[in-house]
């Protein structure tokens, strides 16, 4: 497939790896922010190919993982309401709430559907006028335009039975949260290419400057990742702390203005709780009051109690890159993908699950 296969070329990867090994003179710790990058690194076995002194740390870049417990409980509650069809992306279904996951709610009879796109939820609402369709709208900036568009489509269709339960999170505040922790060891960032496709790269200049840290907007294929890592280390070796764009074929410096306009029309910035991290100010989107009719939070006034996370779970530290998953006392013991204790074990994007699934090789 064009624009995919070329970026998986083993020879190019090996050449970049060679260059990395040549220029990395000391131990460097780099965080890839995005779960998709984590996934690609482990799936392609790249972690084992990097020189030992280049340490990748998996960031909080999995929107499924950082969705707080009580929001999942709320989604489960709505799914179990008579007449409600609750829809979401496949990865959201397995995440356990405080009592059960959406998949378990479905097994007990709730009408839960996996959709490829929020636009299909709007179609579903049109086809089922006697049902309430709730789309559990999770995601980073990348997914926000699609979720926002679904609301605009529903409004245009005059649908009264469509609403979204938002759990939108924003990347730059999370990066700042990571850097603000004194324990952090992060020296460079691979910024999330698809987030920047929407938002552009302007947000990163002040961060890079404030923390004096290189930030490379990076793609997701092996070649992208090794180039991004090379560019980061090169900056580090040269003592630089700049924003660079490895992923220019997709990311324009200004991002995607149409997409941002749609986001701004529908959403406004709000404080947001991140599972395992806590509330980060101005780190999420919620629906604007003009779209209150499409806000499942308002439409269904459900009181769900906040619930405590497992005490043994060190997800916060893992998500900030302070600890590796295998440093958690429960990793692979009480906490496994079939019975996750914390969010990062749930989605295959989650740092703990990624390690569990792909990186056990480290144990051999």
């Amino acid at each position, binding site marked *: *497939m*064009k*624009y*995919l296969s*070329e*970026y998986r070329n083993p020879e*190019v990867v090996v*050449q*970049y790896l060679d*260059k990395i*090994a*040549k*220029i990395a*003179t000391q131990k460097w710790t780099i965080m890839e922010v*995005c*779960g*998709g990058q984590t996934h690609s690194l482990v799936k392609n076995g790249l972690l084992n190919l990097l020189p030992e002194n280049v340490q990748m740390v998996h960031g909080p*870049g*999995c*929107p*499924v993982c950082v969705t707080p417990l009580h929001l999942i409980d709320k989604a489960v509650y709505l799914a179990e309401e008579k007449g409600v069809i609750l829809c979401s*992306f496949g990865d959201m279904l397995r995440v356990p709430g405080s009592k059960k996951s959406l998949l378990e709610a479905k097994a007990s009879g709730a009408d839960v559907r996996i959709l*490829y*796109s*929020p*636009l*299909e939820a709007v179609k579903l609402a049109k086809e089922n006028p006697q049902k309430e369709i709730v789309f559990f709208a999770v*995601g*980073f900036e*990348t*997914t926000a*335009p*699609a979720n926002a*568009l679904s609301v605009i*489509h529903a409004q*245009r269709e005059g649908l009264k039975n469509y609403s979204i339960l938002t759990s939108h999170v924003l990347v730059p505040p999370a990066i700042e949260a990571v850097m603000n922790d004194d324990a952090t060891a992060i020296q460079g960032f691979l910024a*999330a290419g*698809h*987030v920047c*496709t*929407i938002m552009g790269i302007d947000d990163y200049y002040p961060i890079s400057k404030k923390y004096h840290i290189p930030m490379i907007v990076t793609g997701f294929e092996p*070649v*992208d990742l090794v*180039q991004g890592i*090379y560019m980061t280390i090169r900056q580090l*070796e040269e003592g630089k702390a700049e924003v660079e764009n*490895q992923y*220019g*074929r*997709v*990311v*324009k410096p200004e991002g*995607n203005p*149409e*997409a941002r306009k*749609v986001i701004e029309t529908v959403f406004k910035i709000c404080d947001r709780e991140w599972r395992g991290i806590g509330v980060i100010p101005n780190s999420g989107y919620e629906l604007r009051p003009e779209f209150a009719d499409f806000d499942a939070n308002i439409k269904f006034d459900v009181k769900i109690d906040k619930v405590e996370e497992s005490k043994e779970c060190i997800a916060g530290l893992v998500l900030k890159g302070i600890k590796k998953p295998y440093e958690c006392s429960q990793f692979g013991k009480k906490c496994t993908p079939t019975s996750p204790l914390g969010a990062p074990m749930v989605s295959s*994007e989650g740092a703990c699950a990624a390690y569990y699934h792909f990186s056990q090789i480290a144990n051999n």
Partner: protein
Amino acid sequence: MCLAIPGKIISIESQYNGIVRMAKVLFGGITKEASLEMVPKAQVGDYVLVHVGVAISIVDEQEAKKTFEYLEGIGELEELMPSKG
């Protein structure tokens, strides 16, 4: 996060009385629908990056080559830094 895949637009049709452009996008032999609302300039033949049914960017062919050009450039650079490796 944010699985997004490049595919080629093979046809475009209008919906909602012309307000919305929907494309058929080809991914290595399979086609799926995607909204072009976020990429108003996208045309048949363009490669777009699609995420959850919405095209979010047109892939830039010139920029795409740079990754490989950059690699070629590194060699020269290193020659400038003989102290390393």
